[in-house]
């Protein structure tokens, strides 16, 4: 009855257009009143304790870093190098779009930032080179989603925080699936554009592009190299990456002034203001759920109905795909991460693999209406009708679903860099 009361509160709040922050806080307060000591100051105390974690500091730093990098010409310089490398392939420019998104994803932790940074340069270039409009839009929108699966990834940090999973392991595990999706999308781009004319590889233009973009290319090397070698923690790597980005943008590319930096920090504050209080409330709710052994109770109930891990994984994937259509990645991870991760662990799935599977599902959600953020942003960025964008995304959604299925079937693709085993 009490649980129904909470459900009623949540549904009522959704109908009354309340922010997620209010919905989560209200649900946490109800739980404290129904099952706890009814001491509502505890929620604020849990929020304070929840934010007191070192790894949380990496989020504003990665957001800052991404904002600094997107303000300058990093994306354009990366495109120059990769286009020079792929020009001899059929559909070389499309392949360059996808691979550049992957490389940019290793700098930025956001899908939309990646899509906009690369897409605003590559969409006109693809159209000018005669690429099909629908294909071009689909390629840019889907490759943009690589921003959240290729580390660093803000959704991975949030998942790590709410499920107490190692962020470094999640970063390592995101690499394999990110490469798989990049390869599959690139192969499709080559097949789809097999009749497009190709160009011969030119050392001179490659060397020129390389010289112009070497500083940008070093960014993911420093960032990921530092993390994977164990030299830096995620937070330290974020600090070093930010320093590098500032040095390059101010002194090498000369594209960032003091006023720009103020705007970059302000953008970060805006995002932080909506994200961190929400994260603190989610962590407070998490503490409450753990204290009352709610995940364990869910596991018991679920195992009464579903005994097969395969069936569980199938159902969870379906749930997450539906959720991805209705909620943003951050919302879904904050709400469902603490509930689903213990369930997955009870069915024998590693929490790291499950995190990657969750993010892969939600990554597809960026391309599915009505809340597919890449579709919504592409609508205004590329001035295209929503229906056309939805249709453009369809073949790419199927390819990404295939990649998701492969990772679920062979978790070693994700875990190889974590434990060295396929």
């Amino acid at each position, binding site marked *: 009855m009490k649980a129904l009361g909470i459900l009623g509160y949540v549904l009522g709040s959704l109908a009354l257009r309340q922010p997620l*922050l209010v919905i989560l806080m209200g649900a946490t307060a109800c739980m404290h009143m129904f099952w706890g000591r009814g001491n509502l*100051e505890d929620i*604020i105390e849990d929020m304070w304790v929840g*934010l007191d974690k*070192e790894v949380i500091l990496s989020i504003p730093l990665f957001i800052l870093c991404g904002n600094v990098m997107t303000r300058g010409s990093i994306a354009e310089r990366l495109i120059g190098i990769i286009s020079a490398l792929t020009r001899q392939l059929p559909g070389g420019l499309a392949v360059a779009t996808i691979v550049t998104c992957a490389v940019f994803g290793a700098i930025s932790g956001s899908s939309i930032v990646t899509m906009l940074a690369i897409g605003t340069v590559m969409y006109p270039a693809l159209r000018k080179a005669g690429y099909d409009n629908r294909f071009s839009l689909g390629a840019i929108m889907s490759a943009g989603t690589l921003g959240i699966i290729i580390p660093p990834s803000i959704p991975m940090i949030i998942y790590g925080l709410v499920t107490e999973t190692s962020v470094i392991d999640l970063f390592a595990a995101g690499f394999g699936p990110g490469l798989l999706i990049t390869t599959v999308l690139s192969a499709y781009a080559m097949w789809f554009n097999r009749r497009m004319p190709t160009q011969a590889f030119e050392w001179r233009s490659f060397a020129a592009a390389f010289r112009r973009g070497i500083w940008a290319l070093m960014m993911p090397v420093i960032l990921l190299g530092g993390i994977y070698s164990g030299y*830096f923690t995620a937070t330290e790597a974020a600090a070093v990456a930010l320093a590098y980005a500032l040095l390059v943008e101010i002194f090498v590319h000369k594209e960032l002034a003091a006023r720009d930096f*103020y705007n970059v920090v302000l953008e970060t504050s805006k995002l932080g*203001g909506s994200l*961190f209080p929400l994260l603190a409330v989610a962590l407070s709710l998490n503490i409450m759920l753990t204290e009352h052994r709610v995940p364990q109770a869910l596991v018991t109930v679920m195992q009464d109905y579903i005994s097969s891990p395969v069936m569980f994984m199938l159902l969870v994937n379906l749930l997450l795909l539906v959720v991805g259509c*209705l909620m943003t990645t951050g919302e879904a991870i904050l709400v469902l991460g603490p509930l689903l991760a213990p369930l997955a662990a009870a069915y024998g799935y590693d929490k790291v693999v499950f995190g990657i599977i969750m993010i892969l599902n939600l990554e597809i959600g960026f391309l599915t209406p009505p809340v597919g953020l890449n579709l919504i942003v592409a609508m205004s960025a590329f001035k295209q009708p929503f229906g056309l964008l939805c249709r453009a995304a369809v073949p790419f959604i199927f390819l990404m679903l295939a990649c998701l299925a492969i990772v679920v079937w062979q978790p070693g693709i994700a875990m190889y860099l974590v434990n060295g085993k396929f």
Partner: protein
Amino acid sequence: MSAIRRLLEGWHRLECMVAVVCFSFIAGILLLDVIGREFVGPLLRLLGFEPGATGIFASQKLSVFALVIGSFAGIGIATATGSHLVPRVGYALFPDSWGPALDRIADLLTGAFLVGVAWYGFKFVLSSKGTDLRAPVLDWSVWPFQLAIPLGFLSAAGRYFFYAASPALKPKPPEFLE
């Protein structure tokens, strides 16, 4: 109306400045800490000096405090820019023509709820002050930093009340929120 708008704009600028200072502080102090520990320290050791600890003392604890202040100033910023995440699944339940009235009721409810949260926040801060809770490592009283939590909620609540009273003041939500 223009006086209220000016008041809200001034309020917004103040919160922006607080947030910018906090996030810049986090970036700066963590950066100096890493440079000190990973580069300056080893370099000095290589040159035959024994510099002791070369990082910044309690940098992470100070950063967490700055994060709390910046984030809760950010609640007001996110409210002022319409950046709070609002699930849209319930929007289809009512006819579009009800939208403006529903938005005002929603703002009023959100404001009232956040006043309640701020109330419990102040109670928490007072109890922390009463017990003289101190930060590990720094040994500073934590209540002045904790005060950012209820103040942030109160600031957001005030804005929602203004939006309920005068929807024209409400910002348009950004096209995307992530």
